[in-house]
């Protein structure tokens, strides 16, 4: 009996509805655009036709209130949300730099194998367990209220924004150190062997061979954490620091309109979306690079 059968009768082409829906690129674009419009239209209809639509529109989406809260008016007793977001940006940038450094240190300590470093390793593990387990807002309260109460020179006389950044750094470093650790573990042991076999000491093998590869692998999750960090700078407002969220809060209390929060939300979106798209691009680039490598 022959191993190769005769070809089946007929064609393999898809027929009917499937053929039309899954057709070429242009009709695909038309379909996706149409479905997007339908979904958005449905959502808008639900929102606009709801019994309380008028009230919500006035309370959250009033253009004059949005503009007023955006530019602020100190004489009326409220601050500019637009100016306050600048503090969020500064807190974010400073915190991010410190987190990258502190988290790497913690990760390297936890990855070390030298017996003499055992006590520090335990400390590192305890640190990560503690700060990953305690809600960030409690850390902010503890630092922001506790450190000034200690009445120490210098340490107790900082601004609330500084305490807020300190709390963000302490909390996020615990998460980010775990991301680093995953990255370090993602580099195969054979790379360590190759580096050490050439006579590179541990430190140099880490610096030139292991870390560069580890960092490449963790850029997407790292940026993910930083998008989260950008938003969480809003929590520092609980200490009374006039960042965007607090400024919006003050506006709503003075004027009894919540449109200021909408402004803050829009400003945070403007900050985070570019970082999110940038993350997507890096992931895509990495994927393409690896595919290109697989079939040279």
């Amino acid at each position: 009996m022959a191993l190769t059968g005769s070809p089946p009768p007929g064609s393999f082409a898809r027929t009917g509805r499937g053929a039309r829906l899954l057709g070429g690129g242009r009709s695909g674009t038309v379909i996706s655009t149409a479905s997007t419009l339908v979904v958005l239209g449905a959502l808008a209809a639900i929102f606009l036709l709801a019994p309380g639509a008028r009230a919500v529109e006035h309370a959250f989406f009033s253009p004059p209130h949005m503009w007023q809260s955006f530019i602020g008016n100190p004489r009326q007793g409220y601050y500019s949300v637009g100016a306050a977001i600048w503090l969020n940006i500064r807190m974010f940038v400073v915190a991010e730099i410190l987190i990258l450094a502190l988290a790497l240190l913690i990760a390297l300590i936890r990855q070390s194998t030298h017996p003499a470093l055992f006590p520090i390793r335990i400390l590192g593990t305890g640190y990560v367990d503690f700060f990953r387990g305690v809600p960030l807002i409690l850390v902010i309260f503890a630092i922001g209220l506790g450190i000034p109460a200690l009445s120490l020179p210098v340490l107790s006389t900082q601004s609330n924004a500084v305490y807020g950044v300190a709390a963000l750094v302490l909390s996020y470093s615990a998460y980010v150190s775990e991301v680093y650790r995953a990255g370090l573990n993602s580099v195969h042991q054979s790379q360590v062997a190759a580096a050490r076999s050439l006579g590179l000491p541990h430190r140099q093998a880490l610096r030139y061979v292991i870390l560069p590869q580890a960092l490449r692998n963790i850029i997407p999750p790292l940026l993910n954490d930083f998008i989260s960090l950008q938003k969480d700078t809003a929590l520092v407002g609980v200490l009374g620091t006039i960042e965007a969220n607090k400024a919006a809060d003050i506006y709503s209390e003075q004027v009894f309109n919540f449109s200021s929060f909408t402004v803050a939300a829009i400003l945070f979106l403007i900050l985070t979306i570019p970082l999110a798209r940038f993350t997507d691009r890096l992931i895509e680039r990495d994927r393409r690079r690896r595919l290109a490598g697989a079939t040279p």
Partner: protein
Amino acid sequence: MSAGGEASLPVAGHEAIRIEGLHKSFGANEVLKGIDLAVATHEVVCLIGASGSGKSTLLRCVNLLEPINSGRISLWGQEVTGPGIDPNLVRRHVGIVFQAFNLFPHMTVLRNVTLAPAKVRRVSRAEAEAEARALLARFGLADKEADFPDRLSGGQQQRVAIVRALAMKPQIMLLDEVTSALDPELVAEVLDVIRELAATGMTMVIATHEMGFARDIAHRVCFLEEGRIIEDAPPAELFTSPRDERTRRFLRRIVDAGRL
């Protein structure tokens, strides 16, 4: 003493490697069960044996990549498995090439080759690059220096790995099944490189499954089984009239598989 970054181990003497009573376990699994082996300067010794017989572990022990459980390894008469030995100094003189190449994927070919000379031997970047280019040209890789490893064929990657080890100017080269991960048509180009190395008088210990190659190049062939050297003889003797029954059985399987 190593201010110039050059050789600090005594290279004089006839005996390059001496391994005595070497035992090595991974947990409860004893991989090497008492290895004794001496390799003379300029000698080429091939290690043959089934996968898991301990060939790779033995080479990794000589490069000090694996701590040993007991026994001793001496290079040029100096014990390197005792206390107070800087493994980084030892490794400068003992190059190793791995089955899976282990090139640094984030570096160009040139940087792969110059990294260790620049950082460990402390030669200037320009000098390291000049040396690297000369070595790459010698092994037919002159046009690859700007490429990243994943753009190269397996044979090219393995040649780069050999060049990378040679750039440290080692006196001993350990080759760990360097052709086992290659497509058959790429094996020859790598074996040619090793032949050229042997012709220059490089002391080498080669773990290999290429029996024909071992017969051509080796001064001595050692057959390993279950962590022991069963037979140690010149290739003409070991391949044509093996003394031990276990060697005969192994070679028969190789012949049956059409590999010899």
